[in-house]
């Protein structure tokens, strides 16, 4: 990822007029955050309110996304599910980043045998199917939001760790780190002032990408029956529950799927915009 090696000062200003796509993505994310923080603002229903008389109702004005097999309003469930889904996306990415930064910096700074050991270890983890990691974890801890976060987080950590390591090594060789050394700054000062912030910063964009991917991953676990379980309306769980209705009540599967795609798309496109800004600013 060339974006990561560019010692650039980003001009993180979004010229909104120039990119309608960015505006749209921002709107989606804003809606998502609102749903996660105050779902009651976006819907007056309860996500668990049963209405057996009115189950499997087609999308309509009163139920924009239709209702599920227990007559629950799907739109409301999607809105309330945002908190867990977003939480999984952010949590898993944050965990992955924390692990990655710890390992990446240790390897990148220490070099020598420490670097070799960590790099090898990462290779071992990389060789694991992510699914197995999740399966083992869920076998050990039982399925829950926390487990899904840990499973997805640990699963994606090695990739990030490699990036961080590469980033640290490239910043280490940068002119400004040498310049700081030539000014007589202590190594720790140089690490704190220059190396750390500059090695981390390009990861911001990558992180944004990671959030979208984590949500998708988590829903994949739900498909395998390993995700967050109903009555939680985490989106993966909605998809899992909706699967058997795909031929009879399409909205139960298609609409939550579209929401996931939309959110992943919005978050990812913001991440890429950010990435391009970082890159563009360097030119």
């Amino acid at each position, binding site marked *: 990822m060339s974006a990561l090696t560019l010692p650039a000062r980003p001009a993180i200003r979004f010229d909104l007029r120039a990119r309608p796509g960015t505006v749209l993505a921002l709107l989606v994310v804003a809606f998502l955050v609102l749903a996660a923080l105050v779902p009651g603002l976006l819907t007056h229903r309860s996500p668990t309110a049963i209405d057996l008389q009115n189950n499997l109702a087609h999308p309509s004005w009163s139920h924009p996304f239709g209702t599920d097999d*227990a007559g629950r309003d799907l739109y409301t469930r999607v809105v309330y599910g945002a908190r867990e889904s977003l939480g999984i996306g952010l949590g898993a990415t944050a965990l992955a980043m924390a692990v990655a930064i710890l390992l990446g910096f240790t390897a990148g700074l220490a070099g020598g045998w420490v670097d070799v050991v960590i790099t090898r270890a990462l290779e071992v983890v990389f060789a694991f199917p992510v699914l197995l990691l999740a399966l083992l974890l869920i*076998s050990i801890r039982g*399925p829950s939001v926390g487990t899904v976060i840990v499973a997805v987080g640990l699963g994606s950590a090695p990739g990030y760790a490699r990036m961080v390591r590469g980033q640290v090594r490239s910043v280490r060789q940068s002119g400004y780190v040498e310049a700081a050394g030539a000014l007589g700054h202590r190594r720790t000062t140089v690490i704190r002032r220059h190396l750390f912030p500059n090695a981390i910063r390009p990861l911001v964009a990558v992180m944004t990408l990671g959030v979208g991917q984590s949500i998708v991953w988590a829903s994949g676990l739900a498909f395998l029956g*390993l995700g967050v379980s*109903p009555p939680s309306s985490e989106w993966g769980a909605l998809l899992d*529950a909706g699967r*058997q209705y795909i031929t*009879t*009540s399409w909205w139960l599967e298609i609409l939550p799927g579209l929401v996931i795609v939309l959110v992943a798309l919005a978050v990812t496109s913001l991440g890429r915009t950010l990435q391009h800004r970082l890159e563009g600013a360097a030119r």
Partner: protein
Amino acid sequence: MKTPLHRLLALGATAVLATGTLTACGSSDESANGGTPVKGGTIVYAHEQEPPCIFGGWIQQAYISRQVLDGLVTLDDNDQVQPWLATAWKVSPDGKTYTFTLKDGVKFTDGTPLDAEAVAYNFDYWENKGGNSTAKVSIDPYFKSAKAIDATHVEITLTHPYTPFLTLITQGYFGIQSPTALKNRSAKENCEQPIGSGGFTVAEWKHGQEVILKKNPNYTSWPATAKHQGPAIVDEVQWKFVPDGVSRYASLTTGQTDVVYDVPTVNWKEAESKFDTTLYITPGKPVSAYINTVKGVFTDKLVRQAFSYGADRKSAVEAGFHGVIPYEGNGAVSQATPDYNADAAKDYAYDPDKANALLDQAGWTGRDSDGYRTKNGKQLFVKFPYPAGAVINTEGAVVLQVLQEQWKKIGFNVKLIPATQAEVFAGKYSGPDAYDASPFYWTSPSPSILWIVWRPSTEANPNGNNQSFYNNDELARVIDEANTSTDPAKASELYQQAQQIISDNAVTLPLYTQNSTYAAAKDLKDFWLEKSQGEPVFADAYFTK
């Protein structure tokens, strides 16, 4: 993957004879207005789960080994035992000795004659050589020996009289295999290609995909219940494994398969109009929750009763299963079980007022900020783990969620915990500290299943199956008396009394029946299910043009 071992629990342990209820929709009179019968052809059947071996103690294995192996006797639709390999049998007056007369000239597909020696060898194989764990546990306490008297007569001796014995051995676990094959071939060969005398032979097992069953052209030993005499009409059955329900049913609608197992209930209505459908209600303990009577809120009988009254289980089941799967009000045995107590099933009709009153009476009068009842500052909390996939499928989970909402209204905080298969098998939710209520089913019985589930657990003789931890000596006495009674009328009365005791004490929460569903293409005729546990039978089936 929520289903690879689906149905494996409980079903595998079927212990006593089963008397199922079979409701077939318009299949028998269809041949009148159907087309011309065709000889030959290939039936493509989509099953759900792939067993590790073709013969063994899981119901999944019984389903498929039924096609390859023949049993001594079989069960007809009226729960009467009928001849199969045994043309006749005689029970000694003391009820301990069964002498079977075998059909003459039957040969296994490897050429070995199916004689009395072979049958005796098979009993020995199940009982003493680890051949079939379920066959073993079914007759274990009673079985003594099997010996050949002459080529066509075999004598089975029991330690005690045991009337369900004949009915029991109608199950697929009791398929007779070639002793030559068992003795001379490797364990792997016997696992993958058991040699029997059945209508089909295993030609090939493509693991993860399908088992190819080829017609046995020399078939002579069809059961009395067969719909035609002679070898199978079709040439081949492709027994495919399709774990995903949507795909399975879709394969039938697109004509890729001819018969599918376990139709998703949401598709049932459509299936009924387009295909020949069969709903088989499994006898035995229905899907009902064990209620922990030794720890937690349910130590109080009033709370248990309030729990039963407090949710509209009937409506929830009807909605969750789209009216396909019947609600079951009797938590002890299902409606398909003999000596079923239909009155006990009506005991806890939905009555929230009564539930509230019972809870008030029990002292749960406080309310916390979330609206849950409290007593002495303690919340009315119910930990409700359920084996997800294996026992409670997604539709069942919806039923539980509906109930959860209703219980909430009367002040119960029910926490539903889906347990993974790994957790279930590892016994994570098996102790008195692990749950307040947890659903399970146990296909089997005759009502003698009651003894297995409700026998009191003592230091000397623990009963790991009594998962309500409910030791009621009166109940034990009634069941025991029923089991040992020689008078069927008396036995029936006692069994029903036992069910009433269980219901009165609300030590189980009834939910719904356990079922198998099948749908077959209209051009396939005479596909049927045998009675003991709903094993599909393909030997009589034929296509029409």
